């Protein structure tokens, strides 16, 4: 039987060496107490941005601003983006998604954010969608849990 990381046992019997067990190199896995995620398990800004763009495009494509429905849309979009981020299956990451939808009446708006975190493992992705009657700004943050 072949087991990962097994030690080679060679025995010397009559007529030469015989290999009793084979060493199979094991894939690097994250130990329970990891302080840093593996590179492939990091929050990727580009992947998250694609997810946000896709959700905004499908949900708001031909919609006009409507005072009653927009509050439901903003909640749906936030939940959908969060579910898709969960589907990326990055271990030990927490997600925060913020969505703002407003009517286009020529008003000015400025949305800013600042984060106090570990920039090595934590990241964010944002995107805006505009059409003639509404604009939508969505931002998703990924924070690693030590």
């Amino acid at each position, binding site marked *: 039987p072949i087991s990962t990381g097994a030690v080679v046992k060679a025995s010397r019997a009559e007529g030469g060496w015989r290999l009793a067990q084979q060493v199979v190199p094991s894939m690097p896995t994250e130990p329970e107490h990891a302080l840093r995620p593996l590179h492939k398990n990091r929050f990727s800004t580009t992947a998250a941005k694609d997810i946000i763009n896709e959700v905004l495009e499908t949900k708001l494509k031909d919609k006009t*601003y409507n*005072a009653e429905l*927009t*509050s439901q*849309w*903003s*909640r749906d*979009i*936030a*939940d959908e*983006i*969060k579910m898709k*981020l*969960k589907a990326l299956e990055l271990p030990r990451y*927490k*997600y*925060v*998604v*913020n*969505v*703002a*939808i*407003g*009517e*286009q*009446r*020529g*008003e*000015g*708006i*400025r*949305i*800013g*954010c*600042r*984060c*106090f*975190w*570990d920039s090595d493992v*934590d990241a964010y992705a944002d995107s805006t969608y505009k059409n003639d009657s509404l604009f939508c700004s969505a*931002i998703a*943050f990924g*924070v690693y*849990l*030590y």
Partner: protein
Amino acid sequence: MSMQSSEEAAFVQDEVSSIVKESIDQVMQIATYNHAKVPQWTSDVIETCMKKLTLLNKPFKYIVTCAIMQRTGAGLHMASSCYWDNTSDGSVTQKWENKTCYCIVTVFGLAI
């Protein structure tokens, strides 16, 4: 490994709420909506908030968002969805307004 007491390690909404309110009042008190100054105001509000939050010295990572909008009668809806640990993480949203603009600040605190 000893665990921290739950009061120390949980996100305290009231404390953070009062910090946010103070920060907004400090920066936006005498402001009339001015398109050129808005980027500066958002940065100032966020930085003031952040400095005060870090002075709390809690084992938290913070995300502070600020939206300043002109009052033209247009509607705005904000929603957020979070995947975190309910017992230790939390968020606080504070709304502030004057005759010409609205300011909405949200703080998310995530335990490390």
